[in-house]
C-alpha cells in the first residue's frame, strides 16, 4: 500500500495508468492469453510424479489370470440382458452370490423435469446392483468402488464380464484391507446419483425416489468407473472432469498412468495420445489441443463419465474407457484385468485419503500437468484488464464536473437485468406446459426455445429501463453503471475461476475485452457486435465448434446449431438432476451482468 499511499507516487502512477490505459489493457489481455498458450510448454508444465507414499514405493505383482472367463461372463451377461430387455437383475444377483459377494439391489425412480430427447428418457425406472467383497483383514470401515454402467444395447457387456472376473479373482486373495464394492448402475449418471445418495443417506437433488441402500462398506476411498465394449483394446482413455469441473486428486491419474506404462498399454487423455518428443512445434500444438479440450470439457461443468458424481462426496474417482481402434497392437482382457488389479491393490495400500497431490491442475498430456499457481496468472492478467479499466472509470467519474447521479438512478437497470436473469432461470421449466399447449412443439423443444427467446428478449430491455430513469441520462450515469458492471463482472469471474477455473477463464477471455471497451459513444455498431459476440450463449456456440474442431471431426453450421440446442437442454437437465452449477451461474449472474453492459451501450 506504500506505493498507493504516497501522494506523489500515486499521482504519477494514476497519470500513467490513465494516459496509457488502452495500451496497458491490450497488453494485459494479450499477456493473459499468451500465458495460457504457453502453459502447454514444458517449463510451465512439469512432469507428473506420485506424491502418495503408500502408492509410490511399494510394488505389487499382478497375477490376474481370468481373461477368458471375463469374456465368457460378458457374453452371458449380454445374452441375459437381451432376454430380460433391461438389466438382468436375477442373473447378476445369482452370479455375484456365486462368487461369494454380499449382493444388494437398489431400485430407483426419477421423473425428469422435461423429456431428455438425446437419450430418450423421461420417467426413469431402474435398478442398481452391487456386491460387496468383505475384506478379510479389516473391519469394513473403508472401501473402494469398481463401477460399470449397464447401458443400452450390447455396450459395456465386456466391462461387466471383466468386473465379475475380477471379483472372482479378488475373492480368493487374502491381502484386502478395504472392502471392494462391485457396482452395476443402470441409466448411467441417474443410477449413480441414486446409488450415491442412498449409500450416504442424503437427498441432495430432492426428487430421487429410491429404496435406501441396504448394505454398506464404510467410507469410500476411491472409485474407478470402467467402460469397455470390445473383446480386445488398443488403448485406454481416462476421463477426469467431474460435476462442476471438479477434478480427482492427481495421484489417482498418476496411478492409472503408471500401471498402463507398466503393462505396456497405450493410454490417452481427451482421446489424444501423448507424443514422445516435447520440443517441436507439432508436439506443442498437440499438447495445446489436449489442454484446450480439457479446458472446454471442464468449463462445461458436465461430468465426463460415471465417476463425475463421486467427487461431490469427497471420493476420488476416474473413468477408464477401453478403446478399440485401428492400431497394430491389441491387448487382451488379461492385460486389462492386470492393470485394474494393480490399481486396486495399490489403492488397498492407502493409509489415508488421497490428499498429497494436486486437486487443481490442467493436463496438457498424461505425463505433464499445470498446477494452480501456474495457471492462475493467466486469469489474473485478464482480470487486471478489468481492474485497469475500473481505475480509468473511477478517475473519469471523479474528473467529471456534472453533479453526481443518485445511486437510486441505478436501481432500475439493476433490478430489470436481474429480473431477466431470474426469468431465464425459472420460466423455461415452469412454462413448458403452457408453451406446448400454444405452440406445436414438444416439451424439450419448448424449454430450449423459451431459453433462447428470453435470452434474446433481454436485449430489448434497456429501452424500457431507460424510460424509468428520470435525469439519469448523463455521462456520469453511464460511467457509474459501467463501474458497477465491471466490479460485478470481476467479482463473479474470480469466484467462478476458483470453483471451476476453465469456466472462469473462458468467460473472462470472451467477456473482458467487450466489457472494457463498451461505452455509449464511439462506433456503436462495432461495439454492439463485439458485445453480442462476447455473450455467454455465443461463447457456448463457439465452444462447441472449437470442441468438434479439436476432436478432428468438425461440425457444419446446421450440426453445430443442433449441438447447441442439445447443450442447452443438457445444461438445464444437469442442473435439475445433479445440481450442476453452470446454468444457474450463467442465468442468474453472468447474463444480468452482460445485460448491464448492454445497458451501458444503449445509454442515451
Amino acid at each position, binding site marked *: 500500500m506504500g506505493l*498507493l499511499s504516497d501522494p506523489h507516487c500515486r499521482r504519477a502512477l494514476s497519470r500513467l495508468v490513465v494516459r496509457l490505459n488502452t495500451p496497458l489493457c491490450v497488453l494485459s489481455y494479450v499477456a493473459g492469453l499468451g500465458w495460457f498458450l504457453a502453459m502447454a510448454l514444458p517449463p510451465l508444465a512439469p512432469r507428473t510424479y506420485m506424491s502418495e507414499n503408500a502408492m509410490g514405493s511399494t510394488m505389487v505383482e499382478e497375477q490376474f489370470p481370468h481373461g477368458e472367463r471375463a469374456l465368457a461372463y460378458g457374453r452371458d451377461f449380454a445374452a441375459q440382458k437381451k432376454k430380460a430387455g433391461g438389466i438382468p437383475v436375477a442373473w447378476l444377483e445369482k452370479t455375484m452370490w456365486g462368487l461369494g459377494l454380499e449382493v444388494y439391489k437398489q431400485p430407483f425412480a426419477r421423473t425428469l423435469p422435461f423429456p431428455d430427447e438425446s437419450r430418450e428418457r423421461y420417467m426413469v425406472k431402474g435398478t442398481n446392483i452391487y456386491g460387496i467383497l468383505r475384506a478379510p483383514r479389516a473391519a469394513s470401515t473403508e472401501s473402494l468402488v469398481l463401477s460399470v454402467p449397464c447401458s443400452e444395447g450390447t455396450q459395456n457387456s465386456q466391462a461387466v464380464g471383466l468386473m465379475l472376473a475380477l471379483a472372482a479373482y479378488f475373492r480368493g486373495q487374502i491381502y484386502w484391507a478395504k472392502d471392494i464394492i462391485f457396482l452395476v448402475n443402470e441409466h448411467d449418471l441417474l443410477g449413480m446419483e441414486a446409488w450415491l445418495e442412498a449409500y450416504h443417506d442424503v437427498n441432495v437433488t430432492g426428487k430421487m425416489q429410491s429404496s435406501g441402500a441396504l448394505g454398506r462398506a464404510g467410507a469410500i476411498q476411491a472409485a474407478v468407473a470402467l467402460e469397455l465394449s470390445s473383446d480386445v483394446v488398443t488403448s485406454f482413455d481416462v476421463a477426469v472432469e467431474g460435476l462442476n469441473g*471438479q477434478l480427482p486428486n492427481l495421484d489417482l491419474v498418476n496411478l492409472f498412468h503408471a500401471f498402463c506404462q507398466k503393462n505396456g498399454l497405450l493410454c490417452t487423455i481427451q482421446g489424444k495420445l501423448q507424443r514422445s518428443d516435447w520440443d517441436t512445434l507439432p508436439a506443442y500444438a498437440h499438447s495445446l489441443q489436449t489442454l484446450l479440450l480439457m479446458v472446454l470439457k471442464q468449463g462445461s461443468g458436465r461430468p465426463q463419465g460415471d465417476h463425475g458424481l463421486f467427487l461431490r462426496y*469427497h471420493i476420488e474417482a476416474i473413468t477408464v474407457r477401453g478403446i478399440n481402434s485401428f492400431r497394430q497392437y491389441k491387448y487382451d482382457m488379461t492385460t486389462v484385468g492386470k492393470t485394474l488389479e494393480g490399481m486396486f491393490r495399490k489403492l488397498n495400500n492407502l493409509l489415508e485419503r488421497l490428499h498429497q497431490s494436486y*486437486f*487443481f491442475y490442467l493436463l496438457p498430456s498424461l505425463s505433464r500437468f499445470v498446477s494452480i499457481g501456474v495457471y492462475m496468472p493467466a486469469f489474473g492478467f485478464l482480470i487486471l484488464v478489468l481492474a485497469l479499466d475500473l481505475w480509468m472509470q473511477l478517475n473519469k467519474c471523479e474528473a467529471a464536473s456534472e453533479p453526481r447521479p443518485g445511486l437510486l438512478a441505478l436501481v432500475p437497470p439493476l433490478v430489470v437485468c436481474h429480473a431477466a436473469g431470474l426469468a431465464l432461470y425459472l420460466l423455461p421449466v415452469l412454462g413448458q406446459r403452457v408453451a406446448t399447449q400454444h405452440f406445436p412443439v414438444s416439451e424439450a423443444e419448448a424449454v430450449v426455445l423459451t431459453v433462447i427467446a428470453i435470452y434474446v428478449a433481454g436485449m430489448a430491455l434497456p429501452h424500457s429501463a431507460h424510460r424509468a430513469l428520470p435525469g439519469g441520462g448523463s455521462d456520469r450515469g453511464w460511467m457509474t453503471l459501467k463501474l458497477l458492471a465491471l*466490479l460485478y463482472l470481476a*467479482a463473479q469471474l474470480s*469466484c467462478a475461476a*476458483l*470453483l471451476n477455473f476453465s469456466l472462469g477463464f473462458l468467460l473472462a477471455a470472451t467477456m473482458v475485452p467487450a466489457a472494457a471497451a463498451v461505452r455509449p459513444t464511439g462506433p456503436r455498431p462495432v461495439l454492439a457486435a463485439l458485445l453480442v459476440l462476447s455473450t455467454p450463449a455465443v461463447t457456448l456456440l463457439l465452444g462447441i465448434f472449437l470442441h468438434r474442431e479439436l476432436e478432428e471431426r468438425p461440425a457444419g453450421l446446421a450440426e453445430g446449431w443442433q449441438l447447441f440446442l442439445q447443450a442447452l437442454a443438457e445444461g438445464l437437465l444437469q442442473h435439475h438432476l445433479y445440481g450442476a452449477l453452470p446454468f444457474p451461474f450463467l442465468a442468474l449472474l453472468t447474463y444480468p451482468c452482460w445485460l448491464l453492459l448492454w445497458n451501458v451501450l444503449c445509454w442515451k
Partner: protein
Amino acid sequence: MAAPLVLVVLVAVTVRAALYRSSLAAFIAERVEVASPLNAWKRVVEGLALLDLGVSPYSGAIFHETPLIIYLFHFLIEYAELVFMITDVLTAVALYLAIQDYNKVVFKKQKLLIELDKYAPDVAELIRTPMEMHYIPLKVALFYLLNPYTVMSCVAKSTCAINNTVIAFFILATIKGSAFLSAVFLALATYQSLYPITLFAPALLYLLQRQFIPIKPKSKSFWLYTMQYAALYLCSLVVIICLSFFLLNSWDFIPSVYGFILSVPDLTPNIGLFWYFFAEMFEHFSLFFVCVFQINVFFYTIPLAVKLKEHPVFFMFVQLAIISIFKSYPTVGDVALYMAFLPVWSHLYRFLRNIFILSCVLIVCSLLFPVLWHLWIYAGSANSNFYYAITLTFNIGQVSRARQTRLHFEDCTGSGVLPATVNSAGCVWPIQSSIAASCLSCSS
C-alpha cells in the same frame, strides 16, 4: 426526521422477516463467518436444554454465553426472532440518537472556532454545513440496519446483535453525558464480551471533555472524576457478576465465558486471525502466543488515548474497529457495528486514498469466504490455507481502512488546523506490522 428513520426500520424489519421465512436462514445460521462458538444460536438452544434438565449449562464444552443471556432467552425463546429484530432496531435508534447529539456538539464547537477565527483559510471545504450533518444520523442508522452483515447476523440469530445493542446504548449514554448509565452499560458490555473494557478510556475522555475538566495528571478534579467513573464501572460490574452467580449459584460461567474468550480453545475457522495460527502451532508455545495475540486488542488503547484525547468519539470508533479485528472470535456482526460509524466521518472521504480499492477488497473477500469454504470443506480440493489467505486479506483490508481513516482524521483535525503535518503513523503501524508478521509466519 423521524419519518425516514421509521421507513428504514420498516424496510429492515421486512427484509429480516422475509429472510427468516426463507430457506436461506438455515444456511446463513451455519456460516462460520456469521456465527462463532461464542454466539451461535445453536449453542444457546443447547444451553437452554441443559438448563431445563436441571444441569448446569456450562457443564459441557458447548455453551459460552453469559448467565443473563440464558435467562433472557429462558423467558423469550418463543419470541427469539422478534427479540433479534428488536435489538437490531434498538441499536440503530440508539446510534441515531447518539450521533445526532454528537453532531450538535461538533457543530457548536465548529461555530465557536469559526467565530474565534481559528481555522486556516484552506479548510473551508472541510467545515460541515448543517444540511450535510442533518442526514448523517439517518445514514448511520441505514448503514447499520441494511448492512448485509447485520442482516445476516440477525437472521442467524447470533447473540452478537445483543452485544452490539449494549455497546450502542453505552455510546448513547456517554454522548448524552450520563456517567452513571454509561458506566452501567459499559459494565454490561464488558460482562457480555470482555473486550469492550477498552472502551473505558474513550468514554472517560469524552465525559471529562463534556464536564470541561482538563486532562492533566496534576489536576485534582481530573483524578476525582476518573475515580468516580471507575468506581461506578467496577461497582456495576461486580453487581452484574454477583447477580449471575446468584442466578446459577455457581462460578462455572467465569472459566467457560471469559476463560474461553481469553485462552481460545475452540479453533473453528472464522474471519479472525487466531484459529489458523493456533491450529498450526506446537502446544507448548500456545500460551505465549495467546498472550501476544490478546495484547493486540488492549495495547493500542494507550497510544490512541494519548494521540486522540481531543477526539474521544473517533477514538471509540477506532477502538471498536480494533476489537472487531483482533478479538478471538470475531463475526461479521462486530464488523457491522463499526462500519455503521463510517458516515460520521464522511467529510473526510475525499482524503481517503484507496477507499474504493479497500471497499472492493472487502466485498470480494466477503464473496470468496463461502466459495473457499465450499472448496475446503465440501469439495475437499482446497485446504485451510486458502481460507486463511482470504481471512488475512479481509483483515488487512479492515486494518488499512481503519488506519487511513485515522491518519486523515488527524491530518484534517489534528490541531484544528489543516496544514499540521503530523507524523501520525506512529501508533497504528504496529497493527500492520503484526499482521505482516503473522502473514510471514503462516506462509513459512
